């Protein structure tokens, strides 16, 4: 067995059935070993596409995503996807080829110090320099990627190591996940319960960490038992039952007025798997000014980083939430929050005939089954998806939260389609983001993946244009995209059918047609170039200073 074959055996040991990548010189031994292996390899058309596909695969399935690239440009093209996975805590193992060990440091062809480059955007990275350490290093990478707060791990493997004689062994460092609470942890739970029962205006602030901790059911039970009003971050969407009457929606810069008002007025924030991100808090000093904080997060570095907490937990989320589930009687506060929710419901009755993107996305959401996966890109459409579509699990909403990476959506949708082939996958993109990884349309073609693409086209870089309008005196610098290609012709070139719609009365039929078609489809939706995302907390403002459309 050579090193490359040992890599394949190690991947199989970890249950990997699908990998995403792009071959090249220094990774050829591994591609040779993959050639007749049971592992399915999806050839993406750019290493960044392979990285995002691995993320889509991982996020939609709660498994570890694997991507492969060659040295030099192949490896550097992975960097943005690794950074995205780092910011959003996605378990990824990236395998890169490297020039032979003797050539490292000689500026060899396609040589780059990817270990050095990866330090800021991975949980850890390895350069394998001895064939006998290859398998254990890979085992270690899988363990690290999944353990604690998940994240990407890179393993750089020189070509001669892939070609050397190697052997494959089971991991030496098996990790036991048994948790037995000790007295100090139980005492902490009692203190938190005292805080909860003594509060009169509690709010649960839910992030993506709850789903990642497999604690969605415990969170839902906690909310059902306590009756505490809840809000979600962008990555937390889908954690709370959509029909929970006390759920107030997304908080933060483009959150609902009900969510932001409740958080600003609460006296206790129970923060689960969230990190007081700046897009959530607005002006930090003015965020939830009267609230005490119970912070539950597996990453100790997130505790007291942006907001001091009164009580903290790093223990398993399921145990903490189950321990905090106690019936409460905060009827006056709950009634007030429900009143906020009723008063500030979304309005879809915009006058005119042109297509109103929030309404279209709401119509699309109503047509999708609960198991549908929606991948989106970054910009105005991303916020409209978050605001106007309903999710039944965090696994069903793929969005680039922390890094905010345009070009994420299409390859992430591809990864999700491979991870969950029986579930419908819809990509909602914008004309700016879509063009950033447009080459991945050929990956759809290659595998005939039945991905439905809803392209919201305002011929602008919409979110930047919106900020230019509101905060830069309407000086629209380089946000005009009126020279976009003909997207339908473009889709046809990749063997994908499609349709253009421009009027509101075409929407319902076009959505039905798209969802009825068996294969991939592009619905090209022309929308008003000057439409903005509302409400909006301006930069530097606090969350109670939300701007509405009439402001």
């Amino acid at each position: 067995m050579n090193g490359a074959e040992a890599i394949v055996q190690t991947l199989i040991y970890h249950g990997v059935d699908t990998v995403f990548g792009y071959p090249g010189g220094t990774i050829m031994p591994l591609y040779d070993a993959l050639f007749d292996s049971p592992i399915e390899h999806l050839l993406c058309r750019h290493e960044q596409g392979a990285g995002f596909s691995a993320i889509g695969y991982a996020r939609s399935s709660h498994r570890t995503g694997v991507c492969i690239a060659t040295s030099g440009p192949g490896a550097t093209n992975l960097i943005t996807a690794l950074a995205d996975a780092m910011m959003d805590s996605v378990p990824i193992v990236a395998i890169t080829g490297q020039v032979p060990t003797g050539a490292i440091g000689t500026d060899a062809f396609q040589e780059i110090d990817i270990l050095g480059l990866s330090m800021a955007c991975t949980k850890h990275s390895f350069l394998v320099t001895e064939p006998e350490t290859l398998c254990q290093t890979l085992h270690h990478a899988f363990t690290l990627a999944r353990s604690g707060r998940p994240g990407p791990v890179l393993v750089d493997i020189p070509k001669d190591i892939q070609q050397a004689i190697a052997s494959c062994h089971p991991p030496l460092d098996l990790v036991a996940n048994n948790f037995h609470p000790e007295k100090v942890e139980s005492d902490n739970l009692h203190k938190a319960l005292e805080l909860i029962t003594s509060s009169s205006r509690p709010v649960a602030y839910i992030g993506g960490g709850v789903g990642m901790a497999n604690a969605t059911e415990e969170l839902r039970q906690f909310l059902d038992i306590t009756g505490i009003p809840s809000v979600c971050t962008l990555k937390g969407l889908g954690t709370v039952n959509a029909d929970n009457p006390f759920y107030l929606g997304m908080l933060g810069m483009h959150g609902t007025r009900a969510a932001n008002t409740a958080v600003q007025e609460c006296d206790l924030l129970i923060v689960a798997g969230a990190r007081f991100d700046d897009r959530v808090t607005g002006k930090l000093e003015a965020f939830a000014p009267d609230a005490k904080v119970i912070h539950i997060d597996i990453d100790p570095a997130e505790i007291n980083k942006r907001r001091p907490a009164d009580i903290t937990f790093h223990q398993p989320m399921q145990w903490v939430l189950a321990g905090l589930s106690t019936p409460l009687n905060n009827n006056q506060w709950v009634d007030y929050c429900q009143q906020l929710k009723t008063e500030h419901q979304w309005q879809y009755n915009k006058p005119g005939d042109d297509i109103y993107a929030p309404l279209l996305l709401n119509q699309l959401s109503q047509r999708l089954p609960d198991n549908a996966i929606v991948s989106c890109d970054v910009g105005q459409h991303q916020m409209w998806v978050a605001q106007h579509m309903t999710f039944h699990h965090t696994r069903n909403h793929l969005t680039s939260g922390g890094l905010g990476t345009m070009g994420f959506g299409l390859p992430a949708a591809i990864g999700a389609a491979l991870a969950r082939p029986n579930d419908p996958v819809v990509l909602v993109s914008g004309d700016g983001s879509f063009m950033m990884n447009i080459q991945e349309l050929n990956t759809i073609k290659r595998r005939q993946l039945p991905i439905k693409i809803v392209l919201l086209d305002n011929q602008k870089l919409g979110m930047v244009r919106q900020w230019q309008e509101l905060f830069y005196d309407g000086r629209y610098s380089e946000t005009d995209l009126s020279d976009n290609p003909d997207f339908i012709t473009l889709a046809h070139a990749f063997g994908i059918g499609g349709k253009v719609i421009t009027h509101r009365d075409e929407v319902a039929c076009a959505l039905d047609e798209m969802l009825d078609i068996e294969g991939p489809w592009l619905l090209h939706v022309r929308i008003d170039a000057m439409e903005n995302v509302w409400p909006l907390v301006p930069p530097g403002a606090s969350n109670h200073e939300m701007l509405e459309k009439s402001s």
Partner: protein
Amino acid sequence: MSFQLQLQCHKQPDVIERILRVVRHRGFTLNTMSMTPSNCGQKIELSMTVSSLRPAHLLIAQVQKLHDVVTLRCIDSQVDSSSSAIGC
């Protein structure tokens, strides 16, 4: 505020680079640093003083997450007393 950090790390070629990157990125300035191998030869002992307007725990929590950092101790040089990591 300046602090002294005493670390024990696995002897990996990249470990110093990783620690210094975190020190810089998290808003701390490196003032002094010394390194010695441990008796067993598998680890290194690292001592550094850093300064920042940011509280020490923000750096400590990030350095402790590094895979090859085994132990970390922080000494508040201004009060000249050692303490556990987060308490500094």
